[in-house]
């Protein structure tokens, strides 16, 4: 499926809001012809105009920025591909705390389950892993009764 261009997104949104190019231009503080150029893909908006477009049209500025500067996507994708620092640290700290693992008798199978949980990228503190594990352990115990 063909991906929409910045101009198409802006035009679609402006029309959904029942705004003319002139009305949108007035809200943005630019000339109506500039809006027309943006929608036709003949101009790229500046960063400050992008922010105003996001505010006026109720759109997220990051996707707008990527539509205006597709070449920046490669840089950002590299950044996103790397796991975020915080959750990864939480997992490393958890794995590295041998005393904690031994004290709580965490089995390799349980570690595999927790590794899956870590891959969701949401757990921000090592203690959360233990908390989640204990909740699951309790449920497994209930199952076996």
């Amino acid at each position, binding site marked *: 499926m063909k991906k929409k261009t910045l101009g198409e997104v802006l035009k679609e949104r402006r029309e*959904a*809001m029942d705004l003319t190019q002139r009305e949108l231009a007035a809200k943005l503080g630019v000339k109506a012809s500039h809006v027309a150029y943006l929608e036709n893909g003949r101009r790229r908006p500046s960063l400050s105009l992008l922010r105003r477009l*996001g*505010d006026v049209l*109720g*759109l*997220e500025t990051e996707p707008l920025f990527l539509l205006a500067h597709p070449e920046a996507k490669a840089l950002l994708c590299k950044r996103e591909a790397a796991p975020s620092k915080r959750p990864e640290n939480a997992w490393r700290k958890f794995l590295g705390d041998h005393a904690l693992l031994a004290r709580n008798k965490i089995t390799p199978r349980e570690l595999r*389950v927790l590794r*899956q*949980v870590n891959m*969701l990228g*949401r*757990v*921000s*503190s*090592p*203690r*959360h892993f233990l*908390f*989640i594990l204990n*909740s*699951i352990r*309790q*449920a*497994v115990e*209930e*199952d076996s009764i």
Partner: protein
Amino acid sequence: MRDIERLMRRDYVRALRRWLGYRELRSLVSAGAKVWPQLNHERIRLKRSELADISGRLSVHLSARPHREADGMALRGFYVRKSESALKRPLIYVNTAHHPAAVGATFCHEVGHHLAARLFAGKKMEPVNFFYDAAYATHLDDPVELAADVLVSLAAYPEPIARRIFAKSCSGGLVARAQHLSAEAVTQICNHLKRGYRVDFTRSGQPRRDLTYLAGMVHFAKLRWGILAEYDL
């Protein structure tokens, strides 16, 4: 504060159109009505004691206990799917360190995951769904989370109340581009939460916590408005 501003700007109708069709929404409401027959007719206010009963009827494990350690308060709850190797029944965890209304909303959200599993049958589902306080905006980009939130919205704002709040007080009325909540709508929502759920943002003495609850209030109210505007439910 920035999260709230972002939520205020987001187009919820667009997210609903993108992720949840009318048929899917209806089947979610029907499934929810089997758990709470008064869903979308009367306000649902869950008591702690009811959580275990409902979990038992749904054949789901329930873990309801406080989690305050480290940044534990940020975790509102989670839903673990059943798996052949580990859990024979799914597990719902709710963090009871929160305000009772927030505990009820979390439980409702996790039940939403349980009920929505059928909607998304055949799609790859995560083994665990986490509900974090500050992640409402991400729910708009995730059909699984959005479906779970729909149930919370319908429970907190049944149709008669939703019509009273959104159809009359918002400048755009029920046009399908629900975006900004008017000041009048926000006042009515605050009154509704104060009367129905004893949530008072001005009296808790915990500004940071209030802000996250406020973000939740904006999110669920805008979602409810979107459902009314887009699907007339």
